[in-house]
């Protein structure tokens, strides 16, 4: 990736959604989505399959019309603007590369529709091949590329038109873990270089945590919570978010529900001086590598506790009693049950 080829000119545009609703027949798939994404942000939609993420992206791209609500890109109302006039880059999960065109022709497609002159198309295609590390592959057909390479062609094709907004629907879902991680890095770099606004859909919470400036957690067509990854992880607003991002313990104290992450719970001697103390029996121990996870039953409740693994730690066995505890400040009070 040669970051010098382009200045830090912010291409990105803002996105505003106001009370977007969409039904297919009887089922309401989007139930009033409102959201503001600032220019140049990396915003991820995270949610279980069927929660309406793809539908929302299709509405943004213009493939679907919302039943009601307002959609603005760069402050411009998009109602009635057809897909091809929206200047949006889109990366599909299956890449959707044109099988009858080679890599360079695929990338040039969007420039030809914009009727750029030949020399300019050539220059920009080459620049893009270089930026995405595809030099020398311009004359290959999509079927002659690996999955990761196809993904980069799809990315190059979407970016070369200098879109106001880049939409990506589970773009890495079909790739191996190693390739996925390297591409995550590339996408992040590109976003920094282009200053582009990216709306990214995934159901992989780890991917969302790695990439995003902002995560939108969706559930059954509604937004459950919006915020930066750290906030969402440490301060889940609901049981749903707590469970969806990592593991979480929930408990009822003084008439309120609280969420505590397993790593915020200390064990044994480390519990000295903490606000809350409990004692229970170890039911299960899982070795995770860098850490260990204990399942501890306290009365009729179960707590999940992770503890960094220090070589010198005494080895605990299933069935032994264990003291656990945490600071009240490390627990998050949930709005409702």
């Amino acid at each position, binding site marked *: 990736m040669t970051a010098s080829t382009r200045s830090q000119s912010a291409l990105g545009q803002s996105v505003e959604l106001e009370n977007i609703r969409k039904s297919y027949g009887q089922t309401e798939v989007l139930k009033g989505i409102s959201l503001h994404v600032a220019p140049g942000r990396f915003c991820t939609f995270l949610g279980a399959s069927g929660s309406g993420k793809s539908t929302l992206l299709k509405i943004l791209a213009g493939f679907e019309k919302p039943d009601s609500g307002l959609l603005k890109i760069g402050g411009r109302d998009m109602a009635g603007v057809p897909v091809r*006039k929206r200047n949006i880059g889109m990366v599909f999960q299956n890449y959707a590369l044109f099988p009858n065109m080679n890599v360079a022709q695929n990338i040039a497609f969007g420039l030809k529709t914009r009727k750029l002159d030949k020399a300019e198309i050539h220059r920009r295609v080459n620049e893009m091949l270089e930026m995405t590390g595809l030099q020398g592959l311009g004359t290959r057909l999509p079927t002659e590329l690996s999955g990761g390479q196809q993904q980069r062609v799809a990315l190059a094709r979407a970016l070369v038109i200098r879109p106001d907004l880049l939409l990506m629907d589970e773009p890495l879902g079909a790739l191996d873990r190693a390739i996925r991680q390297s591409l995550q890095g590339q996408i992040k770099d590109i976003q920094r270089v282009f200053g582009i606004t990216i709306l990214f859909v995934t159901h992989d919470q780890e991917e969302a945590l790695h990439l995003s400036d902002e995560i939108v957690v969706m559930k059954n067509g509604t937004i459950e919570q919006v915020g930066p990854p750290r906030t969402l992880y440490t301060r889940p607003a609901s049981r749903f978010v707590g469970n969806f991002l990592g593991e979480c313990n929930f408990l009822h104290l003084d008439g309120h529900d609280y969420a505590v992450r397993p790593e915020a719970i200390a064990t044994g001697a480390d519990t000295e001086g903490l606000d809350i103390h409990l004692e229970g029996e170890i039911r299960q121990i899982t070795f995770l590598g860098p850490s260990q996870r204990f399942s501890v039953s306290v009365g009729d409740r179960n707590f999940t506790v992770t503890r960094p693994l220090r070589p010198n730690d005494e080895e605990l066995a299933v069935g032994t009693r264990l003291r656990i505890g945490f600071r009240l400040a490390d627990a998050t009070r949930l709005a409702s049950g």
Partner: protein
Amino acid sequence: MKWLSLPRPGRSLAILPMAMFLVLFFILPLLRLCLLSLSDPAGPFAAYLRLISVPAYRSGLLATFGIAGMVTVLSVVVSYPVAYLMASVGPRLAALLGLCVLLPFWTSSLVRTTAWIILLQRYGVINTLLLEAGLIRTPIAFIYNLSGVLIGMTHVLMPFVVLPLYGAFRGLDRGLLDAAESLGATPFTLYRRIILPLTARSAFAGAAIVFMSALGYYVTPALMGGARETMAAQLIAFNIEDQLDWPTASALSTVIIVVSLVIFAAAHILGGGKSLFGGSAPSTRGVSGTTSSPRRSALDWALATSAVPILVFLVMPILIIAPMSLGSSPFLSFPPRDLTLHWYRLIVTQSQWVYALWNSLAVAAIAVPGASLLGTFAAIGLDGLRGRLRAMTEILMVTPIITPAIALALGLYYEFAPLRLLSGHWGLGIGHIVLAAPLVFVSVRTSLSRFDPTLIQAAQALGAGGLRIGAQVLLPAITPGLAAGAIFAFITSFDEVIMSLFLTNVRSRTLPRLIYENVSEDINPTVAAVSTLIVFATLLILLMHVTIVRRRS
């Protein structure tokens, strides 16, 4: 092309041209026939009562169903060994065997019938050989009786069973057979409990097509059968040409149409709602398990060996026609002596052959582009429909394939004769579009089923309009299907006899009609020469088709 960027319901408009064409030139003429059958001066059902009460019609209908049934059973029985052998040999040999099945399949049925007559007539090739070998004293009557009809029709129709059956055998999971063997199954049990049940559905689908086609058969029974093998199509033609009895002819047509539709519906339902023409042709793509196995039971050997005479049966008429066309004897005696190109020179000098070829090409020039356009647009438009409406449309689009051509010929004749459409090429051209557009539709739809619709969205997002999407994204995807469909349409039009008999006259008659007229009078070497040329043309076209199919996968 704006409809391409339209949402689904808009895209479905592309179905309309073909749908309207079929309503106008397929449904309405057939409905008219139905009404005609009720218009007998003696009362609304008099024509149908006549079919039962007049012995000639009664026995004709019985012969029709009987022969169709026998041909169907024969086709299935002889197809099993061939399909088994094709699936169990290596890819090269399988390709060669495939050619043995496909070449006759693609060759004009009229050419094949001609060849059979040359082979089987009283002093034809086979009788000559048997006499000279001293095996018989007097020639055997192979043709102008039931055996002639069965041989001719089975030869023409059995590939419809072989091809799906071959696909089923290739799809058989070798692991299943291994599992059964490990559980102690004998070879016989293996066939009875596993192989037959797993291939039965394909055999049944092929059998349904054979039976429906056989019901409306005209050429083979007329040329190779005797009086007792007079089938419905001949009765229909007789009623129109000699008796001008429209109500009876229409009643006969209605009966075979209805029976065909009932069988089609039954096959559709038994096939789990899948149209008989829904699947693609058997592919040559790699498969996980073929039935080829180092250990072969005696039963396997028996099956494979019995395929050999059947394959000879398939290719013999195609191979015999070329040498026979070179003999100088005007009686096509065997073996051909004093080799000469005389008969080929006759074709060129007798203007009737040149005219007939010109007429055939002119009709194809209407039918192929017409069928290609209508079929392609309809296949694209089908994507715009969902659920029941889609299923119904799909069935409508393929119904002309299973409708007996004689009935359609009759219906169009009734409509076109008063319009004076028979002396030119348009009447027959329209008829051939009805027959061929469904073939293009099926072929393009198969291509489209592998087309990823997000490609259209990707192109839209990149700023492409409908025209560009159509030309650069959609067209390349359907080109192989379109080309294969167009070739199929050409062969169909170029080979078609029955409609030509009704929808042309002496001036506008096509090559198949002229061959038919020649063969039905007295078979002569010129016909053999013409047939030879057609076989070579077919071979060329077949090679073209194979290349396209290769490229597609």
